[in-house]
Structure formats: structure tokens, C-alpha cells
């Protein structure tokens, strides 16, 4: 990471903190929002032009700026046109977009990791391997650039949290503009718990499978011998990825189902609280991206929103004289008695 980019990220992180602080005071709130926006702008521009991985800058600028342009135009128009009364549903919609973004990032990175090629700088790779040999007396090729279980875990977390937030926000948005009706059935919270358990099991199974493949030597990497002394080489995984792939997409589907089921039974009046909760979820999903890319601004921004959003959710509940548990679970009871 170049020094200038590090500085851009530092500025970004600071503006997020200052922005949040100013947003919690009526006198400075508007300025705080603008400061955070400016920091975000710096971080985005810095990433586009300065980010490099293995000494390679980003490319695909056509696609990149196309996407940024479309997103900006649609975002500004939608935000400007929306009626004042419809603002909370707009926030929910945008929150869902953020969750979907985290979900898509996880899918692409998973595909890279499980099915694609990994580019490794051979010089650093040999150095790591020699370092390992000195330490342990042998060389484990698979571990030369890290056991991938940690990476899979972060990708999975980003996927699950991002897609729950996406699906949940979409339902919340539909509820607020009256397109989706409250829906619950007896024992729904038990079904929800089962779905949640299934997500955890599928995710854990995937991680265990990855771990076994890599510790069993099955998951070693092959490569044609590199031509130049220290080029970047592409490694092709030999691991059997059918099971990993299936489990990954099962987890994705279940997470979306869970997101829908989670918000479905909650009444319209409690929606702001739920949106705030999903908001903090998306923050955590963004922070997973920060871990994945070793990116400090994503990490601080995401975690800040995650923790601030959670506290805000609790504060909102208190302002409504309810407890969070009451909002999330109580609705089932209320529905059951009224039905």
C-alpha cells in the first residue's frame, strides 16, 4: 500500500469518527454528515488510483467509472425525489444495497479462492517457506502463504451478515411502503432458530472441509516452474471443491431466507428499530471486508457503524419504551394472541 493511500485511509477513518460525533449533536449534525462524506470521497478516489496488490494497480476503469456513475446518478435522484415521509424506507433500501454489496464481494472472493487461481509472488513465497523450514524443520507448501481457513471464515461471515441484512432491509422497505404485509405463523421463531442453526452448521462444515483438505496434503498447490527469477505465479488449487461450492451457496440461500423470516413478523411501527439493527449488521459485514483486504478504513468504518448502530438501536427502543427483545420476539406473542 502506498504511503499516500495510507494517508487517505487515515483521513477517511478520522472523518468517520468526527462525523459520527458531530451527527449526535443538533447544532453540528449537518456539517458532520458533510465531513464524513468528504472523507469517504477521499478514501474512494485514493483506492481507485493508488491501490495496488502484488505491485499491480487496479484496471477495468471503464467498468469501474461506469458503475460509479450509474450509482451516483440513481442515488442522487432517488434521494432527492423521495418524499419526506418516505425517508426511513429510503434508508432501509440503501442499507439493503450496502448489504448486497458485501454479499457480492464475498461471492466473488470465494470464487477466486475456491475455484480460481491465486497469484503469489514467488520470491516472497520462497522466503516464507525458508523461514518456515528454519522454524519447524520442514516445509509445508500449503501453509507457505497461510492456511486459508481464516480467509474462508471472514468471507463466510461477510456473506451471511451481508445477505441477512440485504434480505431483511428489502422486506423492511416493502413493509414501510405497504407492499409487504405482516406475516407470521405459529412457531415461526422456532423455524427461524432452525434456519439459523442450519446456516451455522453449513458454514462450519465448509470450514472443516477446507481445513481437512489443506492439512491432509490434498490441498497443495501446483504450478509450472516459473521462467523468470521472481515473477508472480499463478497457483491452481488441487483441492476438491464440489462440496465447498455446494455448502457455500447453500449458506447464501439460507441466509437470504433467514433475513426474510427475521423481519417478516415484526410490526410496521417497530420498523425503524429493525432498520437500525440491520444497519449495524451491514457495518459488521463491511468490517469483514476490511479484514479480508487488510483495509483499515473499511475496518474502522464498519466496526464504528456496527457498535454505534447497536447502541442506537437500543436507544431507539428505550425512546419507544420497549426493550430490544420485546421488539424482536414480542411481536410473535402479540400476533399469536390477536389471531
Amino acid at each position: 500500500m502506498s504511503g499516500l493511500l495510507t494517508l487517505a485511509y487515515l483521513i477517511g477513518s478520522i472523518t468517520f469518527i468526527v462525523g459520527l460525533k458531530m451527527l449526535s449533536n443538533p447544532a453540528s449534525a449537518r456539517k458532520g454528515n458533510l465531513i464524513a462524506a468528504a472523507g469517504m470521497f477521499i478514501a474512494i478516489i485514493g483506492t481507485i488510483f493508488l491501490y495496488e496488490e502484488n505491485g499491480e494497480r487496479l484496471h477495468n476503469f471503464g467498468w469501474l467509472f461506469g458503475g460509479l456513475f450509474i450509482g451516483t446518478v440513481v442515488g442522487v435522484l432517488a434521494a432527492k425525489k423521495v418524499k419526506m415521509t418516505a425517508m426511513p424506507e429510503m434508508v432501509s433500501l440503501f442499507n439493503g444495497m450496502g448489504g448486497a454489496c458485501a454479499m457480492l464481494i464475498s461471492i466473488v472472493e470465494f470464487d477466486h479462492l475456491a475455484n480460481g487461481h491465486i497469484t503469489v509472488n514467488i520470491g516472497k513465497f520462497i522466503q516464507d517457506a525458508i523461514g518456515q523450514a528454519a522454524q519447524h524443520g520442514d516445509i509445508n507448501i500449503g501453509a507457505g502463504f497461510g492456511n486459508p481457513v481464516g480467509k474462508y471464515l471472514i468471507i463466510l461471515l461477510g456473506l451471511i451478515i451481508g445477505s441477512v441484512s440485504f434480505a431483511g432491509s428489502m422486506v423492511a422497505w416493502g413493509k414501510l411502503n405497504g407492499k409487504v404485509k405482516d406475516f407470521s405463523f405459529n412457531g415461526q421463531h422456532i423455524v427461524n432458530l432452525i434456519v439459523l442453526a442450519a446456516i451455522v452448521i453449513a458454514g462450519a462444515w465448509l470450514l472443516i472441509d477446507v481445513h481437512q483438505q489443506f492439512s491432509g496434503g490434498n490441498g497443495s498447490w501446483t504450478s509450472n516452474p516459473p521462467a523468470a527469477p521472481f515473477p508472480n505465479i499463478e497457483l491452481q488449487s488441487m483441492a476438491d471443491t464440489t462440496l465447498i461450492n455446494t455448502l457455500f451457496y447453500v449458506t447464501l440461500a439460507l441466509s437470504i431466507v433467514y433475513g426474510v423470516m427475521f423481519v417478516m413478523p415484526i410490526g410496521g411501527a417497530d420498523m425503524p428499530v429493525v432498520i437500525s439493527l440491520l444497519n449495524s449488521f451491514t457495518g459488521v459485514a463491511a468490517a469483514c471486508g476490511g479484514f479480508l483486504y487488510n483495509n483499515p478504513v473499511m475496518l474502522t468504518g464498519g466496526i464504528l457503524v456496527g457498535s454505534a448502530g447497536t447502541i442506537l438501536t437500543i436507544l431507539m427502543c428505550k425512546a419507544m419504551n420497549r426493550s430490544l427483545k420485546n421488539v424482536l420476539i414480542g411481536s410473535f406473542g402479540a400476533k399469536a394472541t390477536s389471531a
Partner: protein
Amino acid sequence: MTAILDFLQLHIEMVYIVILSIFLGIEVISRVPSVLHTPLMSGANAIHGVVIIGAIIVMGKAEADNWLALVLGFLAVILGTLNVVGGFVVTDRMLEMFKKKK
């Protein structure tokens, strides 16, 4: 167990950032008046749009023949931008409304 310890050691800086950020986030907004709840939620919503940076990285390093990465990355960039730009503009409009009321 050793795997967990290794992971901790490898990412210790990030773990520290996470822990400190959690407390910072709690501290920073703990005394927000209830009128500002919705704008603050909206502002936080815009800030977690930093996820766009991940989308930019995915998009920017996608190989020209990897259509999955190209298409999903492109979608992710659009959605992330929507989150950031829309989030900040909506927050600004909400806060503008506040001023007029006074």
C-alpha cells in the same frame, strides 16, 4: 487452538482496532438526543457504505475473462455507490428539514 493463536498473532493490529472501535462507537453516540435518532441512523448507513472500497478492489482486479467477477463486481460497485451517495444525500435532506423547523 494453535491455529487461533496464530491467527491472533498475525492480525493483532486489526484485533486491537476492532476492540477500540467498538468502544469508540459506543462512546461517540451515547448521548444523542432522540430527535436525532433517525438522521444518525441514516448517517451511519452512509458510512458503512465504505464497503464500496471492497467492491472497487474486486472490480479493479478482475481478469478480463472472469465474467463472474466482472458482472458481480460491476453490480457491487453500483449498489455500493447507491449506498454511499444516496445515504449521504438523504441524511443531508433530513438535517435540512431540521433547520427549517427551527
